[in-house]
């Protein structure tokens, strides 16, 4: 039987130094000036540090996109997989190595368009994986096509006269599909984002975190959203305290989505179920 006990779960008290967690030879990273994905990366590393997870016990699985490139800068076990499929790869990895803390970093296109089915089934199974979806409302990497989260009226290379499709509320989708933990935060609230990710990492079961990120170079420019500082300032009025309150926060920007923890529930975890099931079957057939 596989050992599912995580090796390191102590709470870390030493100060956080991101340079200890980055592949320094690959830095500076490839992302454009002001790209929100870099802020999300820092929050993820700080959360991993807070949870006291050792590098060897962390596996980060990424899809394709600017968001998918995030994992490559982390000095831990990392996988760059195929477009839309990081959750499928992560499912295999977590079942084979339940002792690892498995984190998926994906984008709105990666996770909701081509990978939409993988998301709903990962949530339904409730395997112990933390999924970070960096939502910049666009396909950043391929030059700015519309994604399932592109807001109405936004200009992209595939919506030249403004988007008209309704969007996905990814958190509502994950919750409806059965995820045990669901939350959302904006990069502007990086300390709160870190706390949210740490909570998701500690949750046993499928934890979905949507990070509202800014694509400054493409989405921001095409839509006249200002430079990086203006874009991040428009996310929320002010820095909030680090801790999440119980009730979700209402958005600052009109028509934006609320932030906070929406779902936190104990559900049977898939890996445990599968191992118990397999053991039961073995017990029946081998005397």
């Amino acid at each position, binding site marked *: 039987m596989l050992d599912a006990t995580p090796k390191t779960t102590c709470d870390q008290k030493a100060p956080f130094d*991101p*340079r200890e967690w*980055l592949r320094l030879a690959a*830095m*500076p*990273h490839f*992302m*454009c*000036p*002001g*790209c*929100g*994905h*870099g*802020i999300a990366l*820092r*929050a993820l590393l700080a959360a991993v540090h807070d949870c006291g997870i050792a590098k060897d016990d962390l596996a980060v699985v990424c899809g394709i996109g600017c968001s998918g490139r995030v994992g490559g800068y982390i000095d831990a076990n990392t996988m760059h997989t195929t477009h839309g499929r990081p959750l499928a790869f992560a499912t295999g990895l977590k079942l084979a190595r339940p002792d690892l803390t498995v984190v998926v970093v994906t984008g709105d296109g990666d996770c909701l368009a081509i990978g939409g089915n993988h998301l709903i089934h990962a949530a339904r199974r409730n395997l112990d994986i933390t999924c970070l979806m960096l939502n910049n409302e666009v396909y950043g990497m391929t030059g700015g096509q519309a994604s399932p989260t592109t807001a109405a009226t936004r200009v992209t290379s595939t919506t030249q006269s403004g988007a008209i499709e309704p969007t996905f509320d990814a958190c509502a989708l994950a919750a409806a599909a059965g995820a045990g933990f669901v939350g959302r935060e904006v*990069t*502007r609230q*990086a*300390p709160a984002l870190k706390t949210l990710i740490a909570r998701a990492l500690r949750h046993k079961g499928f934890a979905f975190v949507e990070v509202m990120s800014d694509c*400054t170079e493409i989405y921001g420019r095409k839509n006249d959203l200002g*430079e*990086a*500082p*203006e874009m*991040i*300032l428009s996310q929320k009025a002010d*820095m909030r305290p680090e801790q999440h309150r119980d009730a979700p926060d209402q958005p600052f920007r009109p028509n934006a989505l609320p932030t906070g923890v929406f779902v936190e529930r104990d559900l049977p975890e898939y890996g445990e179920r599968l191992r118990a099931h397999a053991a039961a079957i073995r017990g029946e057939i081998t005397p």
Partner: protein
Amino acid sequence: MRPLPQEDFAPAPRPASAGLNILVVGVGGQGVLMISKALALMAQRRGFAVKQSEVHGMAKRGGIVFSHVRFAEQVWSPTIARGEADMLIALEWAEALRWLDHLRPGRGVFIADTRKIVPPFACRSRKLGAPSAYARETPADVVGRHADGCALDATGIATALGDSRAANTVLLGRLSAWLDYPVAEWHEVIAAIVPKGTREINRAAFDAGRAWTPPAPDEAPAASAAAAVAPGPDLRIGVSIDAAWCKGCGICVKLCPERCLAMDGPKAIVRTPAACTGCRVCEWLCPDFAVTVRNEGVPA
């Protein structure tokens, strides 16, 4: 805190027949109105005419909340004039001080939680560890000198019982020691006004407050009072920007609350390091890990 003279704490119960003016003060969210409701209900049950008036406009923002409770054979004015309160119940230390002049000179009873809730406008400097403009007076300065009464760590007592929010009921319990109404009746009144699920803790908090005795002189908590007056340590904050990683997005420059940083061509630089408070906004929000904020500790 200086040891408080023991005699001051033997409350002489007031006859149930006498009317009283009781002022309950605090800040939003502490439960000022719960105390005044319990008092009003109790007085009503004893056949008094009761008037209660309150101000809680800024309550949601941690602003002041106060409530006047008056009961007697006949009550005309709904408010208590300066110098006419028989009792002042304060849930927050600075509020206690602010309302002291409403107590009857020489014979008003003063009961306060020593808990401090420092309002944002008391923070004159945003530097880490900078002293605040919060009231300097310690419980020892007030209790013995101005009035009959006591200052207790009601929040600490309630926290030890399981919920810091029951601090108001701890103070109500303390107050009850000055009134000769039966304990069972207080329990009934409290059970009638608190949410069902909190009856147990509120009852325990009431009993703890009623049974409270001042700490013996040597175990009096000196530290909390001292912390209020001593200025914070002068911390050295070091902010640096790694030019090799900075992509010049301008986020740190525009979002630093103290305007410490500036653009120098395509890169950000630290312009006025002395103004840095160590808030780390720049460090958290730099997408390129180029900013490092170090707390270099207290200079020797």
